[in-house]
């Protein structure tokens, strides 16, 4: 079956604009994660969704970042008033069983460049 998909694959925007990044998890996966990878850095956790539970937003770096997950499937990460330091690869991952945090299936990522 299809893996995790993300769109767009690349996004170039101007400082101050809003952007939306989309993630389609593997069908049936209840958990969804967003990470950010800045140049030379490891993956930084942003947010976690599990079923209908309240998301864990503890990794969001500022209130300019938000995410939602509609119908327990597709997720959108929104960055408002983008800054140059938001430039990074944004990765989405999903996992199949509640608590199976260790085995995550990753998407190809969205490379965001803020000019």
């Amino acid at each position, binding site marked *: 079956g299809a893996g*995790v998909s993300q769109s767009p694959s690349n996004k170039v925007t101007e400082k101050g604009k809003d952007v939306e990044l989309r993630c389609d998890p593997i069908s049936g996966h209840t958990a969804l994660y967003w990470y950010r990878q800045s140049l030379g850095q*490891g*993956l930084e*956790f942003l947010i976690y969704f599990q079923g209908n539970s309240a998301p*864990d937003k503890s990794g969001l770096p500022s209130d300019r970042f938000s995410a939602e997950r509609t119908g327990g499937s597709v997720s959108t990460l929104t960055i408002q008033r983008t800054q140059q330091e938001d430039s990074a690869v944004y990765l989405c991952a999903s996992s199949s069983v509640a608590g199976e*945090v*260790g085995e995550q299936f*990753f*998407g190809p990522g969205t490379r965001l460049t803020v000019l």
Partner: protein
Amino acid sequence: AQRVTQPEKLLSVFKGAPVELKCNYSYSGSPELFWYVQYSRQRLQLLLRHISRESIKGFTADLNKGETSFHLKKPFAQEEDSAMYYCALKGANNLFFGTGTRLTVIP
């Protein structure tokens, strides 16, 4: 606080030589550790987890709680092992990743 350290950004070895990618962690509880790999133009994927005590593609990793390490080892490196390797520690709702080591196997 949970933290994963991979001290080597780059590692080059010759084909057939042993390879060891280092990983150290800090965690107050009972840790669960993983190695993820990203081959060129491919997605990040799980390579192995310590609780399985398995060998994947010839790689093994042993959790050493005394040294708080989870080094990845392979006795004879192959060219196809060239990739980016990330060590990860399981948190409550996410994985904590190290900064990664780029392994290059020289033919």
